């Protein structure tokens, strides 16, 4: 009981209210993230509506196998993150640490594949800038790749931050900071990581799967 009492801040009526306030706060932050990505998605929608054919052609430069592989990796990392929160809830310390490490590994695999894709695009001259290739419709293709690098870059930045937060969670786990009555930071890290997965769920079809037929 002394542990529980020490976790409860004096301005909350009880543990439940404290937990609800914390998760609600996280959701408030996540909605600001929707707006953050939303501005870029708006750019995507406007340019794709204006140049549908160019966007389809530019999209075919992306490697659909790597994109699909990364989607599977990220969904896998969402499962391990859900299992990490589950383990925290049951106060299974070793399982929590293991699942956090597994999630970090899967996140790193995603980033590794992504950096390979970036390097490939760079060598093909598809990074917007002075060395952009001068094939057909280069001016408009540049728009697609600007949006591609901005969206996936912002997403990757979120993943790097997420892995950093998980490192902190791992440290707290190993220092016995959590128990079944208080694991709120793990739950909130989970919400953040699942949100990153959610963003990719939309980015994958929008960027990789345009007009693949024919």
């Amino acid at each position, binding site marked *: 009981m002394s542990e529980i009492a020490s976790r409860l801040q004096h301005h909350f009526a009880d*543990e*439940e209210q404290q*937990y*609800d306030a914390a*998760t*609600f706060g996280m*959701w*408030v932050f*996540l*909605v600001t993230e*929707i*707006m953050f990505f*939303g*501005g870029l*998605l*708006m750019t995507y*929608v*406007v340019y794709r*509506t*204006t140049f549908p054919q160019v966007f389809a052609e530019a999209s075919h430069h992306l490697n*659909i196998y790597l994109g*699909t592989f990364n*989607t*599977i990796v990220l*969904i*896998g990392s*969402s*499962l391990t*993150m*859900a*299992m990490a929160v*589950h383990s925290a*809830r*049951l106060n299974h310390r070793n399982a929590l640490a293991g699942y956090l490490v597994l999630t970090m590994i899967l996140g790193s695999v995603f980033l590794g594949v992504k950096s390979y894709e970036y390097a490939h695009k760079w060598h093909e001259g598809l990074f917007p800038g002075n060395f952009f290739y001068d094939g057909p419709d280069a001016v408009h293709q540049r728009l697609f790749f600007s949006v591609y690098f901005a969206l996936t870059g912002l997403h990757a930045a979120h993943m790097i931050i997420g892995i950093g937060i998980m490192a902190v969670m791992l440290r707290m786990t190993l220092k016995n900071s959590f128990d*079944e*009555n*208080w694991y709120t930071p793990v*739950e909130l890290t*989970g*919400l953040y990581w*699942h*949100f990153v*997965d*959610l963003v990719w*769920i*939309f980015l*994958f*079809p*929008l960027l990789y*799967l*345009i*007009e*693949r*037929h*024919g």
Partner: protein
Amino acid sequence: MPKHSYNPQAAVRAYLTVFSCLMGFTALTVAAAFVDLGPMNNVVAMAIAVTKAVLVAMIFMHLRGGSPLNVLWISSGIFGFMIMLAFPLLDLLSRNILGIPGK
């Protein structure tokens, strides 16, 4: 801590079910992209993405069984995002429909 009593077996089963569904939908969306459905390709891709997003939000992110305030707040957020999408498109798609320069 959440108010509801927690059933560990049921929770793990739900997580694994959602994971399998997400994998299935990923395969489906890639397969659908190679079929020529005309403008419906976009609709199918987005419908699958929204279904996947709802599964993740409800089960992995514990919207189901959590505070209803969270659902209300996120719905408002998505509604705001829809407004952000709709109003610029209203302008973009209605340009030059009158055939009068500048209108």
